[in-house]
């Protein structure tokens, strides 16, 4: 910590901006979890593992084909969509509406399979991508913004925007929201709810896959990141309000900032104390999330 208060404030401001940029990617990751829960009331305990699968796919695309994660992002998202769709159809669908502990155990098994498939294919070492703009930065006044974080945040914003358009403007998106609002009503008006659920799980998986590709620009990947991301995604969606899309994004920003600021004010190893402390407070005092209105 610097003795000069001006310098300290600048460091803090810098951390906040960095936290906001990373938080955008966190938000996109949590958005996937929130969409899945919001529509079919399934808590995806394999969410962090899907994130890591997205990171590995983006790394493979870079390593084998030399593709920038920003370029491979649509392909990674599409691959995760197919995976999520098939997974929902074959494994998860029979468990919709069953008690939480059964869904938990099911997705835990999926999580074990995913993380160890990554381990078996890519090994336990960390992998990262070296893009040519990795040391570039933008200067805004006294602030220095890493180019990778700026691009990742912008891309995350674009994906979230596309998702918003899908859910508000397209027929399929509206049908999914209808099925989420009223399951029986959706069946009565003749919607193919099973199909919609599978599409929703695919979309949730695509979100987290896209977030994984973007996260690879910021951090290096190894299989054991998965459980941390699962926890992080839970913290974010609870803070923002489970099932709320805007809440997930806002929660992502908030947790991104709180981690970055804790890294400046406290030891970096204490950075998640903030997030878990916030999680406990929100669970107890505003379980519907900071943004949502009490129902």
């Amino acid at each position, binding site marked *: 910590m610097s003795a000069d208060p001006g310098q300290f404030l600048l460091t803090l401001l810098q951390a906040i901006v960095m936290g906001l940029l990373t938080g955008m990617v966190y938000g996109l990751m949590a958005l996937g979890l929130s969409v899945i829960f919001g529509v079919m009331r399934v808590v995806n305990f394999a969410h962090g593992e899907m994130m890591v699968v997205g990171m590995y796919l983006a790394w493979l695309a870079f390593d084998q084909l030399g593709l920038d994660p920003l370029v491979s992002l649509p392909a990674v998202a599409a691959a995760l969509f197919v995976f999520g769709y098939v997974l929902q159809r074959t494994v998860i669908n029979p468990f919709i509406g*069953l008690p939480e502990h*059964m869904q938990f155990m099911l997705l835990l098994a999926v999580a074990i*399979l995913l993380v160890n498939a990554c381990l078996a294919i890519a090994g336990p070492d960390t992998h990262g991508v070296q893009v040519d703009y990795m040391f570039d930065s933008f200067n805004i006044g006294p602030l220095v913004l890493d180019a990778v974080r700026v691009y990742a945040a912008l891309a995350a914003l674009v994906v979230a925007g596309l998702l918003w358009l899908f859910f508000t403007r397209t027929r399929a998106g509206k049908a999914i929201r209808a099925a989420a609002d009223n399951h029986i009503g959706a069946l009565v008006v003749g919607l193919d709810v099973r199909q919609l659920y599978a599409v929703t799980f695919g979309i949730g998986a695509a979100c987290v896959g896209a977030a994984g590709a973007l996260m690879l620009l910021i951090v290096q990947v190894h299989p054991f990141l998965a459980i941390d991301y699962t926890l992080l995604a839970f913290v974010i969606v609870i803070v923002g309000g489970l099932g709320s899309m805007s809440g997930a994004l806002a929660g992502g920003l908030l947790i991104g900032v709180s981690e970055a600021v804790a890294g400046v004010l406290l030891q970096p190893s204490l950075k998640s104390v903030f997030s878990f402390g916030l999680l406990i407070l929100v669970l107890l005092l505003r379980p519907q999330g900071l943004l949502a209105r009490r129902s």
Partner: protein
Amino acid sequence: MSIWQRLTDGVPARALGALMLLAALLLAAPFLLRVLPAGDYWLSILILVIYFSYIGQAWNIMMGFAGQLSLGHAIYLGLGGYVAAALYVNLGIGPWLGVFVAIAAAMLAGGLIGFLGFRFSLAGVYFALLTIAFAEFTRILFDHFKWVGGSGGLFLKVEAEGSAFNLQGSPLLFYYVILALAAAVFVLCRWLLTSRLGYYWLAIREDPEAAQAAGINVLRTKLLAVLISAGLTAVGGVWSAFYYKNLFPESAFAMGRSIEVTLAPIIGGLGTLFGPIVGSALLVGLGDLFTTLAEYLANTWGIKAAGLKQIGYGLALLLIVMFRRDGVWPWLARHLGFDRQREDRP
């Protein structure tokens, strides 16, 4: 009704007989295993089975009986282990005394988590997340808690002159200690299930609002489940700390450890007395099977890949969950004829 009558009421005779046989086998197991090649190895596997069935049984009280999903039981294991180990290493207080402090510490933590969670009416996933959050919080605190070694860990010396008085000794000692614990918790759980408290728990598990309407003090009853479960789990934590002789916050309070606790009772059959035992035997057995299989693949075919063992394990877990979603024990009991009630019951 005498205690014995109450404990065995409605249990088919063949189930009682099988249970007696199992108890006798387990008592003699260390000596029977000695005939096998690698008998020490099989004893260590059996120790694992009994340990996981013990902590699974303790967790089952909270989730299987009272219906409160805890995904943070590592906090009780970790606190129990750390308290007893730190008392022994730093102050020279032996574990047979330290275990009571460990139980108290875990019950205090459980009481706090339970009170906050239930007072603010958290249920299901929300309550589970609260338990995770407290476990993670504690993990980070212990990382910076220098008296117990911080993130560098806390170690118990291997004492050549160690006596059972300080829970030091051969695997045989640890086997009989954990066996006694598992047997005691089994009887305790049966007794709880036939008690008024047990019926209150089942009522709350099935329908908390109806239970409240029937005049059950729901908050107090749920808190009792957490307190008993936390205290029993802490004893398992003490045992495991002295058995493994090292503690790190990263593993003692890990999310993965909390998940390990839940596996056996859910796979075996939630809320049943044999679920945790059957689940633990099945899962430890599968883990061992896939370890052997991975070694075989590596040695014979030259197929080496990290994670191969866990892929097999994950696949087996997935299949069991998909096709035996109520657990293995209820299905097994039906096939063994253990679920039939005695004819003389009204």
